[in-house]
């Protein structure tokens, strides 16, 4: 019987699969299962009352909306940053490259305080916006700024390696065959970059949905206006309402999961189309 087993290129498949499954359950599945278990200690009506409360609905709108806008901004500007870092050589490039990772490394509370200092009405940037009646700190705009900040590295770091693999010669070939710049971008570059861009977008969005530390400082936390869902989760915890907090967390989790799933399906469809 043994001889029938196909030898794999990499040995120890069984062992590594077992380990991967064990590790994933330990780190991801068990905590998530505990979260769901806690949420469903509530009765159905309690659960729906909690997650459909008007204040909760307002907070989803802000959390998901701001995370979406932030991810869109990152999609465009993250792509440009990645492009510049890959295609051009300039003085201080290494430093800019390292700076991109800063939002990863910085404690989120520090980021929040720094952004608030800049964008508060008396802040370095805020004072120049005040005359135009543009308020950033303590408004939904401030939430978008914070979520854009923390999400940037996700797009840059996923697009960059793919872009590095793309050879310049392909674009030159396209140009020599008479393609316009726009045409080259749309038909040659974009299809190759799309999976990476989508992944970066999804990561940036998912990270932003759950972000707490940096947002609470800049948002102002006004109920129904600038209250993000993670803050609402914390207020439930302050009342020792663990189940209520878990219920809201489940909603966020489901939203993020559906989005990630949609993007994966889009990727799949895209690669099939490109392959066919």
């Amino acid at each position, binding site marked *: 019987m043994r001889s029938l087993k196909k030898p794999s290129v990499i040995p120890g498949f069984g062992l590594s699969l077992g380990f991967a499954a064990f590790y994933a359950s330990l780190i991801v599945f068990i905590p998530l299962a505990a979260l769901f278990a806690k949420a469903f200690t509530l009765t159905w009506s309690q659960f729906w009352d909690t997650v459909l409360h008007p204040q909760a609905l307002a907070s989803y709108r802000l959390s998901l909306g701001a995370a979406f806008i932030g991810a869109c901004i990152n999609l465009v500007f993250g792509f440009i940053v990645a492009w510049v870092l890959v295609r051009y050589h300039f003085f201080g490039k290494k430093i800019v490259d390292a700076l991109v990772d800063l939002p990863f490394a910085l404690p989120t509370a520090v980021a929040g305080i720094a952004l608030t200092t800049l964008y508060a009405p008396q802040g370095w940037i805020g004072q120049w916006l005040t005359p135009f009646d543009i308020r950033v700190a303590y408004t939904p705009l401030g939430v978008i700024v914070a979520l854009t900040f923390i999400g940037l590295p996700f797009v840059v770091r996923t697009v960059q390696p793919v872009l590095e693999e793309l050879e310049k010669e392909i674009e030159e070939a396209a140009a020599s065959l008479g393609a316009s710049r726009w045409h080259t971008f749309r038909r040659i570059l974009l299809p190759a970059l799309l999976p990476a861009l989508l992944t970066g977008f999804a990561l940036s969005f998912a990270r932003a949905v759950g972000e707490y530390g940096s947002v*609470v400082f800049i948002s102002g936390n006004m109920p129904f206006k600038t209250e993000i869902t993670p803050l609402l989760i914390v207020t439930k915890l302050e009342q020792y*309402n663990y189940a209520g907090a878990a219920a809201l967390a489940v909603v966020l989790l489901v939203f993020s999961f559906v989005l990630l799933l949609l993007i994966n399906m889009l990727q799949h469809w895209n690669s099939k189309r490109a392959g066919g």
Partner: protein
Amino acid sequence: MLIKNLKKSLLVLALGVSAGAATLAHAEVKLLNVSYDPTRELYAEFNKAFSAHYQTTEKEKVTVSQSHGGSGKQARSVIDGLAADVVTLALAYDIDALHDEAKLIPEDWQSRLPNNSSPYTSTIVFVVRKGNPKNIKDWDDLVKPGIQVITPNPKTSGGARWNYLAAWAYAKKAYGSDDKAREFVSQLYKNVPVLDSGARGSTTTFAQRQLGDVFLSWENEAFLIEKEFGAGKFEVIVPSLSILAEPPVTVVDKNVEKNGTRKVAEAYLKFLYSKEGQEIAGKNFYRPRDPEVAAKFAKVFPEVKLVTIDEEFGGWRKAQTEHFSDGGVFDQIYKPGN
């Protein structure tokens, strides 16, 4: 045979470990005090004094570790298993939770020590900018149009609940009814541009971001602001009436029994009530309970009419459900259309 041997060696090991633990316990006692944010300076000084005191009276060396954070978060850590020997939190509600959620302490914990188990007190005062440009004297000035009031979110900050209740108590006394008080407090929160999640966040908003005309603050924090950001930039205004904030303390029974630290934990809390402990509280801008020590600090702490949460609101549990729990008065104030 193998199993028998294994059992034997395990037994020996266990004996060895417990013997080691026992000698260790004799050599040095460890105590963990889980506290809230603004008590850092107070307990840094107090722990040193207590160690010295215990060394001379009991001939034992004690090392006290501190943990600080938002009061509610700290209580949850203890509920979830942080082995605190004593807790010293911002309000009784958070210590009640140790009983309600995890039965770590008996229900009547607050009657075990004198003065509602609160060895020092504080109150809520106003901090305004230098020269008091908006001429803010009392609570009535906070509801005037065009005044910006800085106070944290009472849903997430224990200190902010004292602020809210102080305003309520004033309005009830001044205008005679709970309905009027509610109107007053709603009006006050209309003047609040930002609800920071914690007291230190509000301090930054007011002192560093220059936002707002008046900041509602713990008295001890108000003194710290003067110290940190330079005297002369801010002024402390004491309103005509405020609330007696009692940050209570207790031994965590389940944990001290497990750690074998009941004796030293009780001595620790008792020392808070001693002359020396009271002096340290006073020096760190908490109002001492001891009349003699309080008299020494009379110049620091202005006299102010104080109401208590028990007489005015029927205790923390009741106040919490009525005002701050989901669907309570605070939530209703912020309902759209109100």
